[in-house]
């Protein structure tokens, strides 16, 4: 009797265990399936758009087929380049401040400000940069777009760089100080080099975060059917092209939008994979 009762209790427990295992696995499976489905959709639709012209030609007038999106590819590279140049020094200095003054009231204020900045919708950043840079300079520009993207990536980069600074063993700093190295030199020559790979990763993830942003570019980079290398003038970008093309009634543009989506996804994915594999080493 007793043995049976134990057995059945054991069975119910085993059943419960199986049930919850499934209950957890199914959503997990759905998440993986979702990623695979999205990637498959983008690859299937996007691959057809890819040809030599797609990478090297400018946009055709409305409704004409052919041409390419070189203006958007180059535009995205310019915007991301500009945003790194703007965001990196700020996030480096901010994270150094957090590192050096940890626990202080000001550092807490700074940390809160960075967290809050992360929560600001990116469309708002676009509108603000429109009135801060576009209107005073009297032109939409890749500079304005780059600054908007820099603000988008700044919080993520700062907190990541800060984390990588914290990971440097404090004994390094102590050893340097004990040898009589001034604090500022210890930070530049010991702490920063030791966290260089962390800084690189932060930059990579910041770029991946900003690459797909559309909203901050609508009122800043503005778009351009022509290839432009000007910092002071408007440029196109991959997300802008996807946004414009997919709403159009033109089949050729729909296909190009998928092609641009494929490029963007490949770029962001390879950045993530690259960073992931670096972390393992």
């Amino acid at each position, binding site marked *: 009797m007793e043995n049976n009762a134990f057995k059945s209790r054991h069975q119910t427990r085993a059943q419960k265990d199986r049930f919850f295992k499934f209950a957890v696995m199914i959503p997990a499976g759905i998440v993986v399936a979702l990623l695979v489905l999205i990637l498959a959709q983008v690859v299937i639709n996007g691959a057809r758009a890819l040809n030599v012209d797609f990478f090297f030609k400018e946009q055709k007038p409305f409704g004409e087929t052919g041409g390419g999106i070189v203006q958007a590819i180059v535009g995205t590279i310019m915007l991301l380049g500009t945003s790194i140049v703007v965001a990196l020094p700020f996030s480096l200095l901010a994270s150094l401040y957090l590192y050096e003054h940890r626990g202080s009231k000001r550092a807490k204020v700074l940390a809160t400000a960075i967290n809050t900045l992360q929560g600001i919708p990116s469309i708002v950043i676009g509108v603000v940069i429109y009135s801060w840079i576009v209107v005073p300079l009297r032109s939409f520009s890749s500079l304005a777009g780059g600054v908007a993207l820099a603000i988008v990536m700044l919080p993520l980069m700062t907190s990541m760089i800060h984390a990588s600074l914290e990971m440097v063993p404090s004994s390094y700093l102590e050893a340097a100080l004990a040898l009589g190295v001034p604090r500022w030199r210890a930070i530049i020559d010991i702490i920063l080099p030791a966290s260089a790979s962390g800084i690189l990763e932060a930059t990579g993830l910041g770029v991946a975060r900003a690459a797909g942003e559309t909203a901050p570019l609508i009122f800043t980079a503005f778009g351009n059917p*022509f290839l432009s*290398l000007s910092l002071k003038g408007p440029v196109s970008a991959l997300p802008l092209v996807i946004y414009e093309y997919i709403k159009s009634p033109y089949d050729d543009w729909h296909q190009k939008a998928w092609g641009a989506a494929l490029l963007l996804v490949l770029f962001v994915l390879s950045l993530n994979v690259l960073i992931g594999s670096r972390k393992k080493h």
Partner: protein
Amino acid sequence: MKRNVLFRRGLLMALCLIGAASALNAQTLLGSGATFPAPAYTKMFDEYYKTTGIKVNYQAIGSSGGLKNIQDRVVDFGGSDSFVKDTDFAKYPASIVHIPTVIGAVVVTYNLPGNPALRLTGEVIADIYLGKITKWNDKRIAELNPAVKLPNMAIMPVYRSDGSGTTFNFTAYLSAVSTEWKSKVGNANSVSWPAGQGAAQNAGVAGVVKQTPGSIGYVELAYAHQSNMPAAAIKNSSGVWVDASLASISASAAGAFPPDSRILLVNTNAKEGYPISALTWIIVYREQKYASRTLEQAEHLAKLLWWMIHDGQNFVEALDYAKLPAPAIKAAEAIIKSITYDGQPVLK
């Protein structure tokens, strides 16, 4: 250590690249606004680039967006197919001028099985958009199209969600033919729509209609033609059924032309005229010396405008826009000649 050096070098190179890129600043002009003429403009500007090497970047963001940008003085020119009313001139920091560029048609397009050719009157279109006619096989549509077997499908009206000159002309027409429309909805770049669903820009409305069976929308003729969408024949004020075509659009613009070019063409009394024809304009400041603008920029702009109303006209008919009639070109020439830089005419 090695990695760090690499990293620094990379950063330095990125900086140099950006510096070099900004030095390569080719001559460009920037405009934004109306999507109604965008197929014609982007074609013109493509040709203009081939002949002059000057890149004209036109962003089709909607007429209201173009007017806002010219108010903010962040573009060289704005595009609009609703003209600025006298009472709105005060919103602009200086005197502006309207240069007519092409004439187009707002067509009523739809997505039905087999896309039969349909006939619609202004009153019926107004009642569809008022939400009073909700089915495609409604008696009032069937009466106009006895030969067509209409499906028992709900009608989904699609309208412009952004401020739009196309909406301005469309609602101007509906206000002219329907008193109920005039009193309930009225005529503006954006109105509050009693029924339907919104989409941004001409391309957006065409895109939604193309992908939604049972929908109806209003777009510039070129958008419908380029994507093989049908356009309803509409009964004009003379009682004639007219399709939007080069001939019927030109016919509605054959009347007198005011010197400042601000004129609506809707509900024409020309016998063969298409009733929702519309002019579209480029809007610039009369005095071009503002902010940090150079004389060279002003000259590039004036030359582009001059080219658009002359040589540029050769490219519009292939896209189903009508060329400007002679009186309109004459008025436009005088307006372009009135553009000044520091008080001196830009074009001599």
